[in-house]
């Protein structure tokens, strides 16, 4: 099922190590069960250092759970997983993680910049008084690093304000800074673009891709809509119908592969702007009962995102190609 990744890398020219760097995440014949239910099985995945990987699929198929597996918080029912060369959970200090949908209560009176700093110092027990030179040096270094990350995500203007009073998008930027501040080798982002408006989606996607390239960080990003990140992707992991497919975007997001995954014919349209639109994917994916595809009709157009139930918060113009770019969020 895995399509080995190599020459077809989009950024092979820009990023030398992609595709032949060290192994960062490896799943072999992996299966995950929550309760009685098998979410997905026989997953094979091989993510190399420096790659930019999207994890796609409809709601509830186990995308977040895949990140949990990589963090060692969810055990496999079958198969094996290796992260940074070892069983998962052993190198979590080298993994940056952005959980899905995290909002801070308005009553929390802690500055954004403190939140970022905790990404660096929050695991450290003990008292570190800046008495010795070395300790002072380290303090200064940490402060500079935190400031660097805050600037990098463009949060300078509001990092000093209480985190609970910031907008969802502002919080999201600070959280990305937090997940980056410790200089991780692997960055796991669970729907980081979700609460952002379209220009900000593009900006944050560019930012993450830029960091991935510049600092050689491997990025796995769970996304709702592939289009903002499509141009930067080395690899796509697509979960649907209890199966996991991985490969280059072209190899995965095509009619043949997706129809096989969903077990029902789906159409993939490439708009003139280069956006991908998946048409006719089934609404519900209770794969263990067998996918019940619904008849193709125009009411079921979808972008290459997969949220039939949450249409309301995702309209980005290209969703319904026949309507052009005139819909709600633009």
């Amino acid at each position, binding site marked *: 099922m895995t399509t080995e990744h190599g020459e077809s890398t989009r950024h092979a020219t820009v990023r030398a190590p992609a595709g032949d760097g060290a192994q960062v995440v490896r799943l072999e014949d992996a299966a995950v069960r929550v309760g009685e239910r098998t979410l997905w099985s026989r997953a094979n995945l091989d993510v190399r250092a420096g790659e930019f990987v999207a994890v796609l699929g409809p709601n509830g198929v186990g995308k977040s759970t895949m990140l949990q597996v990589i963090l060692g918080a969810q055990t496999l029912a079958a198969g094996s997983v290796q992260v940074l060369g070892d069983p998962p959970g052993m190198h979590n200090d080298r993994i940056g993680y952005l959980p899905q949908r995290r909002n801070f*209560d308005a009553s929390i*009176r802690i500055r954004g910049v403190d939140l970022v700093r*905790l990404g660096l110092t929050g695991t450290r*027990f*003990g008292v570190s008084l800046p008495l010795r030179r070395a300790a002072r040096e380290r303090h200064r270094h940490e402060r500079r690093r935190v400031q660097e990350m805050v600037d990098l995500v463009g949060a300078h203007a509001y990092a000093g*304000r209480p985190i609970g009073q910031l907008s969802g998008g502002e919080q999201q930027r600070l959280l990305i800074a937090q997940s980056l501040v410790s200089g991780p080798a692997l960055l796991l982002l669970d729907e980081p673009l979700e609460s952002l408006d379209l220009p900000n989606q593009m900006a944050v996607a560019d930012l993450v891709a830029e960091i991935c390239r510049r600092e050689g960080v491997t990025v796995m990003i769970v996304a709702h809509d592939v289009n903002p990140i499509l141009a930067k992707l080395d690899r796509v992991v697509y979960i649907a119908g209890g199966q996991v497919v991985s490969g280059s975007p072209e190899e995965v997001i095509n009619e043949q592969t997706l129809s096989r995954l969903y077990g029902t014919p789906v159409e993939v349209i490439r708009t003139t702007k280069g956006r991908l639109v998946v048409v006719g994917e089934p609404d519900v994916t209770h794969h263990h009962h067998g996918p019940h595809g619904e008849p193709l009709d125009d009411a079921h157009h979808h972008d290459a995102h997969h949220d039939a139930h949450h249409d309301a918060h995702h309209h980005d113009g290209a969703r319904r190609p026949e309507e052009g770019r005139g819909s709600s969020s633009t």
Partner: protein
Amino acid sequence: MSVPPILVPVVGLSANPLTDLRNLLSYPFMVNAFRAGAAIAVLASAVGWFMVLRRQSFVGHTIAVVGFPGAAGATLVGLSAFGGYFTFCFLAAVLIAVVPTTTGRAFSDENAVTGTVQALLLGFGFLFASLYGGNLNGIDALLFGNFLGISNGEVVILAVICVVTVAAIAVLWEPLLFASIDPAMAAARGVPVRGLGAAFLLLLGLAAAGASQMTGALLVFALLVMPAATVQQLTSRPALGLWMTLALAVVVTWAGLAVSYYSPYPIGFWITTIAFAGYLTSHLPGLVRQRSRRRRHRQQRP
């Protein structure tokens, strides 16, 4: 501590505040009260600062209420109320820490059950205190605070508990802050969020018991919540905020002690009132800013 063994000297205020202060400190029981007050204020407000951040006020209050029948029961069987508070509050904290919760964070949404248990415990406390001899002063002291008759030994114990708690907070500072603000992320980074939560509950047990000694079981929030809530209005820097909270709590407690020495009302009432005044004052800058903004807004429109 519930039954004051010392008669309160009836002293009026003089014209000179310095004389008053010297007067105040000429009594050993008053000196002990100030010492104990400082230790309790630091203990309670430091833990309280985290309690507010973690939004676990309900647990804090529950633990304090458990202390009431503990202290009353201890007096009834001839032991000290001091030990009764600490034993019961600490045991309550252990129990809460051990019993698994659905949400992972103790008592965040089990208000109905806890509320019921609280009512029952208050009832028992009242019963014990009545059995002791219908001494209503005793009940007042247990519920609303008392600063008389703190022994030298008790001051030492309070100081030790205070130092241990502050040291624990210093050592746990970064991870506890992380786990309190952002538990999901902290857990992913390998911070022992559950263990820290349990450890914090034990500290909260000590803090609630300590605060009860001064403010009474019902008014513990005067030291657990109010200083932290006040300082939150003034700064959102964590370390600075904690220091300011400690300082404010000590000032409020000492002021409460001084005032209640000259007044017939219980110490808990005075600490609460002074702390609340501070809380209101901390809102002033925000209110003024809002008003002037509104006025400016109005002026801009013709």
